[in-house]
Every structure is written in structure tokens, then in C-alpha cells.
């Protein structure tokens, strides 16, 4: 009963489960929490995303994975380790990482050392202890450069390349400044803006390299799925 109550807080109970198809491509599956003539907001289980209606192709009412998750979770007792593990695995298979984490949290309450649950919570085993990925990378000698973990040698190569690029850019910039001194102020303003954008883009967000199977997604999405409820 307590579990069910927790889920009600976690996932607001709504009347319908919907799939919102966007024009041209893409879709969002979840529950509509608000729909007006101009916009629609969908609870996807890990957060709420909104879209203007002029981008929406069609909305299909139906039962979604969130409903199934809620049903299955409500039937599990708090000590049902196997049941929560199975549900966590199922949620992960559906791409419902927030629900998977919720299920695995129940597993950890019963068995704090469960390997699947710890992995699902983003922890890795290092010398018999469960630690964060960041801690494991540091312990294994990796360094963080430009928002990515890499070997010190790779970081050195990248740093040298960037220094050379910056020197080249600076030289080009000086030449341009000499030719057009009157545009210097404008040029510096643009450069500052570019640096700000670059700094923003360097925030660590798990780069993904597909290398020949899949493409397009360059960083792990941290939008609503990684957001707070």
C-alpha cells in the first residue's frame, strides 16, 4: 500500500495514456497533463515535455508503458526482490529509465549489494565497492578534459591541438584586426559570445560515439528523463 502511495506521488494518475506524433518525425509517449488549442504537455514518466500544437501531427489515445509499470508495481510487495528486479529490467527494456531506477531502488532497500540495481543507479564496482562512474574513472587514471573522460595521453594530444588551433586563430585574428581596426570591437564581442557558447557546450553530458551503427545522438539525453520530478 505504501508502495502504491509512493507511485501515486511519483507518477500522477491520469485518465488516458497517449502517444503524440510530431510532424515530420518523432513521437512522445506518455500521458497528456495539459492540452490547449495551442499546446500539449506530456508526462513521459521522467518529466513533462510540452509542444506547440502546430508541431503535432496526431494524438493517439492508448495504454502506455507507464500504465503497465504502475499496474505491475502496485502488485509488488516491498520485500519482493525478484519482482522488483524483473520490473526494473522490464522498464529499462522499454526505455523507461526513471521507472527502472525506481524499481531498482526498491531492490537496493532489500539487498544493497545487488549488482543489477547498483549498475542501474549509475554505480560501478571498484575493488569490491560500489562507486560512481566518476570515482572509478579517476581511480583508473582517466582525466576529464573538455567535458570528457579520457586517458592523460589523449588529453595531452587534445590540449596541444587546441593550443595550436587557438594560436592559429589568434594569429588570424590579429591579421584581421590589423586590416580592419575599426571592426575590432565587434570582432571581440563575437569572440566572447563564441567562447561562452563553447564553455556551455563543454558541460559533461556523456558523449556517444556510434562508429557505424546508429548515429545522430551525440550525447546522452539529459532532458526531462534526467530532470527532477
Amino acid at each position: 500500500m505504501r508502495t502504491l502511495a509512493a507511485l501515486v506521488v511519483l507518477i500522477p494518475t491520469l485518465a488516458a495514456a497517449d502517444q503524440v506524433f510530431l510532424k515530420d518525425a518523432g513521437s512522445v509517449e506518455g500521458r497528456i497533463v495539459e492540452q490547449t488549442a495551442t499546446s500539449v504537455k506530456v508526462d513521459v514518466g521522467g518529466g513533462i515535455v510540452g509542444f506547440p500544437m502546430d508541431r503535432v501531427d496526431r494524438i493517439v489515445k492508448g495504454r502506455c508503458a507507464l500504465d503497465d509499470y504502475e499496474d505491475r508495481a502496485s502488485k509488488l510487495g516491498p520485500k519482493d526482490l525478484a519482482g522488483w528486479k524483473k520490473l526494473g529490467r522490464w522498464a529499462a527494456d522499454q526505455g523507461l529509465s526513471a521507472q527502472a531506477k525506481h524499481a531498482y531502488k526498491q531492490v537496493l532497500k532489500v539487498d544493497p549489494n545487488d549488482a543489477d540495481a547498483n549498475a542501474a543507479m549509475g554505480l560501478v564496482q571498484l575493488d569490491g565497492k560500489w562507486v560512481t562512474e566518476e570515482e572509478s574513472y579517476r581511480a583508473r587514471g582517466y582525466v576529464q578534459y573538455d567535458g570528457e573522460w579520457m586517458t592523460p595521453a589523449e588529453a595531452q594530444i587534445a590540449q596541444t591541438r587546441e593550443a595550436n588551433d587557438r594560436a592559429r586563430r589568434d594569429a588570424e585574428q590579429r591579421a584581421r584586426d590589423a586590416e580592419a581596426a575599426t571592426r575590432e570591437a565587434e570582432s571581440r564581442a563575437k569572440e566572447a559570445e563564441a567562447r561562452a557558447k563553447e564553455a556551455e557546450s563543454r558541460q559533461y553530458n556523456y558523449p556517444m560515439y556510434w562508429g557505424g551503427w546508429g548515429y545522430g545522438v551525440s550525447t546522452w539525453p539529459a532532458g526531462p528523463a534526467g530532470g527532477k520530478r
Partner: protein
Amino acid sequence: MCGVASSIALAALAMAATGAPPPTVDSVVSDYIAARGGLAKIRSLQTLRQKGHAFAGPGREAVVVRELKRPGKVRFEFTHQGITGVYVTDGTKGWQVAPFHGDASVHPMSEDAVADAMEQADIEGPLIDWKAKGHVVELAGRETIGGHDAFKLKVTLKSGGTRFDYIDAKTHYEVRTEMTREIGGRPVRMETSFADHRMTNGILFPRTIEVAAAGRPNPLRIVVDSIELNPTISDERFKRPAGLD
């Protein structure tokens, strides 16, 4: 270069000692094609749909679907937390809808992603009919991949890109591809390893693909759960939205 030449010479000597003819590009590719199910079967592949899961580290898992259609069309869908992003190339240009941050609009795909997509757009892979496609393939030696002897093929694509394909000397399966991509302004060497090869209706496919970027600690692993050969896939799935030119 010396290393490559000497390993080819050594391979030739070894073959001469056993009486078998030394491997050539044509014999390696021919064995590879046979192991995949044969040229006729591969050429019969007009469309392909693969579904699976991508794992990018602990707690990061997504559902992925890849659709390919001759000529040169690829559609890739990435579903995470109920949101599906779509990345498409029609063989020339790419576009995407990635509503993960609430942005439902259509955007042109990045050059890096288009480069990835273009290489995948060849539904049968670059080694099939490579001469007709204008690629150049050279035997660049032998290496040990995962404890097994493999032929190393240097593939210079017609587009100018270069990749190395490794063909297991015993099974003749493709076990690894290496390529370099410009990512974030830096060249990054990537190794894509293929494992768990299985036949699907007479054509061989790897069911586990692992992509490791040089010096990065966390590889991306893709597990292919299902493969459909020649499913009906409408051209509309790859159609570029108006106004994106």
C-alpha cells in the same frame, strides 16, 4: 608501410609453406561474402530493419531502431524515457527531430552525424561490389583481434574516407572496423567490434556491436534484438521535410 609489407610477405611465406595460395583482397572478400550468406542473398536485401538496445554506461539504456532502404536511405530512432528522436538521411542530406529537451522542430543533422549516416547508408556494406562502387580495398596485413587471426583490409571509400575492416581468418566474419571521425573539432579514432554473429533468414548479422573511442573509458554497446529482412518501409519514412534545403 614496412610493417604492412613485411606482414603480407610473412603471410605469403606461411601460405607457401602450407601449399595454400596466399590470400588476396579478392579471396578475403570472397570468403567474407560467402560467410555472410552469399552474394545473391545479400543483393536481394532491399530493406532492413533492426531493433535493439543501446547501453552507454550504468543506468543509461535506450531502445534503438535502424531502418535502411536502397539506395542510401537510413532512418535511426532513439527512444529514451518515452521520447523518440528521429535521425534520417535520404542519401544526400540529413535531418532530425530530437524532442528530448522539448524542441519538436526539425533541424538539419550535424555534419558528423551525416558522415556516420552516409557510411551506414550502404545496406550491404562497402566490401560488397566494392569495385563497382568506386572504393579501393587493399590487404594491409594480419592482426590478432580478440585472440584470433584476422585479415586487415584498408578500405578507401569513393567519398575519400578511409576505414579498416578486419575479417576473421577462420570464420571470415567481419569482427572489427576502425575509422577516424572529426568530433568536436578533434579527430577521434573509433573501433567498432562485432560479435555474436547469427544467421537471419540466410544472411549473417552481428547481434552485439561495441563502439570504443580511443582513450575513452566507456564504450557504447548495442545489442540487436530483432532483424527483419525486406520489410515494407515506405519512402515517406525518409522524406525530407519541406523548407529544410
